[in-house]
């Protein structure tokens, strides 16, 4: 990070951002974070040219100077926006080319959706300022709310009390029971469980014969994304156990996997992938 933290923190008098929030200073841009966002959403700044890691470094330095609730607020806001920017950036970095196949179209749509999400987020953020102003203004207002005059107090309808003392205690129990906000159940989703261990056993079986295999060959026949993911995780685990080696001649090129373990016992498989649960 080239810019020293205190240079970043300066509230920037020339800044159009009057509240003097977080300022970004990276290669092609120097100004408030909000401005960076609006430039990106207006596509006047290429997201791929913004170093998110530099922005993050700056932000962390800026955060250290803040305190308490303000810090939390700014941090959570930054996370929301940064996560979207990251998605955006990933989408931008992917090859674009000509609109030849459906995949590319889908990619562009995904990018637009991310822009949309950012815009939507900004809309809610902006309108939340209105909420804040209104609520603050309204807490200063005073409504007439006085105790009922005694002469009216005694004239209310006679209470029809139907609760027994035991029912009353049961109500108390109900009221005191911890109020957990119920969690949305996922039980209705019946995705078949895929075991990293089982897939590892499969991969080991294929590789142990001695012939190096490409990743493409290893996942041949896998009809579910989950199986592909599980086999990939299994490979990482096996690599950690020094059971296999990788070879890749060029970036994004064919990945070749070779069996390198000298004394492998199937007991090693038992614990493999345990941290993935299944």
């Amino acid at each position, binding site marked *: 990070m080239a810019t020293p933290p205190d240079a970043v923190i300066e509230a920037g008098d020339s800044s159009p951002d009057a509240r003097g929030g977080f300022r970004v200073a990276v290669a092609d841009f120097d100004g408030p974070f909000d401005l960076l966002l609006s430039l990106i959403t*207006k*596509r006047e700044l290429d997201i791929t040219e913004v170093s998110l890691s530099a922005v993050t470094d700056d932000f962390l330095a800026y955060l250290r100077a803040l305190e308490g*609730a303000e810090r*939390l*607020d*700014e941090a*959570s*806001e930054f*996370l*929301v926006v940064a*996560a*979207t920017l990251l998605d955006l950036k990933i989408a931008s970095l992917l090859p674009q080319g000509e609109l030849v196949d459906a995949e590319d179209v889908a990619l562009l749509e995904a990018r*637009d*959706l991310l*822009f*949309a*999400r950012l*815009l*939507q*987020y*900004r*809309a*809610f*953020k*902006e*309108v*939340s*300022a*209105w*909420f*804040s102003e*209104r*609520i*603050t*203004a*309204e*807490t*200063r*207002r*005073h*409504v*007439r*709310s*006085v105790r*009922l*005059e005694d002469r*009216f107090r005694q004239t209310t309808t006679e209470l029809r009390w139907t609760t027994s003392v035991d029912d009353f205690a049961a109500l108390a129990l109900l009221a005191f029971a911890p109020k957990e*906000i*119920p969690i*949305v*159940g996922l039980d*209705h989703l019946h995705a078949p469980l895929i075991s990293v261990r089982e897939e590892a056993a499969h991969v080991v079986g294929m590789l142990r014969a001695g012939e190096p295999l490409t990743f493409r060959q290893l996942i041949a026949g896998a009809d579910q994304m989950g199986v592909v993911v599980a086999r990939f995780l299994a490979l990482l685990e096996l690599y950690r156990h020094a059971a296999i080696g990788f070879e890749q001649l060029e970036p994004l090129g064919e990945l070749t996997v070779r069996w390198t373990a000298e004394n492998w016992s199937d007991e090693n498989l038992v614990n493999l992938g345990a941290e993935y649960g299944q």
Partner: protein
Amino acid sequence: MASETVTDSAAAPDAAAPENADAPERAGLADGVDLARALEAIFMVVDEPQSVVGLASAVGRPVKEVRAAIASLVADYDGEPDPAALPDAPARPRRGFELREVGGGWRLYVRAEFDDVVRDFVHTQAPAKLSQAALETLAVIAYKQPISRGAVASIRAVNVDSVVRTLLSRGLITEAYTDSETGAIHYETTELLLTQLGINSLDELPQISPLLDDGQAGFDDVR
């Protein structure tokens, strides 16, 4: 009721019939009692916003009459000239209080310019300020209600559980219904939120479309 009904239809023969239908059996103002005066007596004792319909049913007068009487009280307290007075009649004072329609009904408020004067006499503690995250979540729920927690989280891109709990405990949102298929609870805002915003209905929220049509429609224009 019988005598009041006579009064009603005598007072407004044409309009009374349909609206008067919802008037209650029991209550009702005696003949000749000035409706505006009776309403201001009621406003003295209420501690919730009073809807016009509720008031009409309490005093046994047509909704239309009650609405007119409230309008006359608002103008009266605001110091607007009495429409029934002669042109050169002296102006009425602008009262230290006003009648406001907030949170779905009418209540008496101290006029804003006297807020500071009365502050020392009021002992309510202002509730803790809502965090930025809570305000944004509240905004999302206000505009997209009824909405599940998951849907809010996907707009805010962060977990909103504790924020939703805060908003629930402050009475600003409430559970609208539970989706029978997914079991997801959907939330909506309450009248208390309207009161705290000082507005009377959700229609008074600022317009923020077209950004909100799921980012789909109208997106090209914005870009």
